């Protein structure tokens, strides 16, 4: 998937959870997601990408902005 397609998928997944997608947002720090919401999001992202994310990639969901996560996932998702 391209970065744009991944960003669009994120947009949909966040919207159904009541969050607003913005490339500069961090999921925990800015959107206030708790660990349960993050788990649910990660599993849905894995479903969209049809692959398991590795442990390093999971850490991106805590540390990085949504734009950075999309870029990483589009590159290889296997950091």
């Amino acid at each position, binding site marked *: 998937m391209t970065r744009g397609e991944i960003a669009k998928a994120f947009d949909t997944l966040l919207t159904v959870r009541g969050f607003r997608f913005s490339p500069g947002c961090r999921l*925990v720090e800015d959107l206030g997601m*708790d*660990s*349960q919401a*993050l*788990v*649910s999001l*990660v*599993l849905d992202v894995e479903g969209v990408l049809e692959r*398991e*994310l590795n*442990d390093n990639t*999971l*850490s991106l*969901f*805590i540390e990085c902005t949504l734009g950075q996560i999309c870029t990483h996932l589009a590159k290889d998702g296997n950091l």
Partner: protein
Amino acid sequence: MHHQEHSGVLQRLQQQLRYVCSNVPCYGRFRPDNHSVLELLSSLPIVDKSIIRQRYADFISNDFTNIRAQLVETLIAPEAPDRMIYEAVDRSGVLIGQTGGSTGTPFRCPKGVADRMRLGVGIWRQRAMIDASAEPGQLYPFLHHGARTTRFDPDSNDPAHLRALYEHVAATQCRWLHATAPMLLRHLDILQGVKWRPSLPALRFLECSSYFMKETTIDKLEDTFMAKVVDQYGLMETSVIALTCEHGVHHLNDYNTYVEILDDEDRPAPVGVAGRIVVTSLQQRLLPFVRYVTGDYGMFIEKTCSCKLGAATIRLLEGRESEFVAGGTQRVSGKVLFQHGISKALMSLGNCNLKYVRIIQTGVDEFVLRTNSLSEPDQFCAFLQRYTSSELGRTVCFRHDTLDDEHIIVEDRGKSWLFRKEMV
């Protein structure tokens, strides 16, 4: 070959041990690059909750230096039994879990948001191998619900409240229910008293944790709830360690934990030989548990099923380290000793109105008997004191505490007992 070696778990183990040696003060003297991953692991000290409790700061990662002092203060703070916390979020967003220690002293362990997320992903990946439709929103937790609260309390003994709880659970149409078997059995007994039975049509899996599961209990729960029982073995400290497949076999969770089974000399026990279960968390960074003594016993067994929810399989043995009477030359199970002792006391004294009993060991020769209000408390206590002294071959002392219903619930949440029984 260790049973977890043939999966991707070794890569996770190597990454985790490198992290630990680089970031956690008490492992700073170990050099990860000079060893193979399993050599490095076996060179690290085996730890238990008493060691960590005494040196919390040394076990907290340097990545969390900014909150370390405040966190240690929270972890060591004494708390009255009726104010005990079980899963609470502290001021820095860290989730604090708490278990009862073998001495009754609570043991608290922190997990960061990232720890919880990575552990949660690992747990759900394993659940999804049992139930392809499993999703976090489809599980109703009676416990381990973190900071989330609802208006329903599964610890309630009020039949009307429990009925409302089950009607609420039914309305959520959850596929999974997470609880403990004793809690569910207690609910069923209470609800049977008002001739009402829960009906959860959407429920497919009943995930039971925290207690050793017997076949008869599994059969009763599966018949009543018309759902498959999944036995989740884990610790508050490291979260889920193993889950049973449809054949009732425990598969280790390869995402979250690396398990060793060690004999009394700390050597790996061969397949089929029982030993102490020692676990290394593969996902926790804030306070990473490495070679942590669980207090449980088990053995690796040959994998005979084709289930994919974990490459290695184990059989758990009933009984924990903390359930053996301390201070003797022989291992005496509190469960066995006091089951017989209480039966004999009831036969000798009549039923005494005994509904709930819990026995803890407060010193080598000192025990506390906690029960509901008894008709003959002094006689009952004296009988148990004589019986226990005779069985252990030394003079021991028993003290009796009466608990009201509210305190029984609080008491029951911890695990610090040699013996516990609810008379039904």
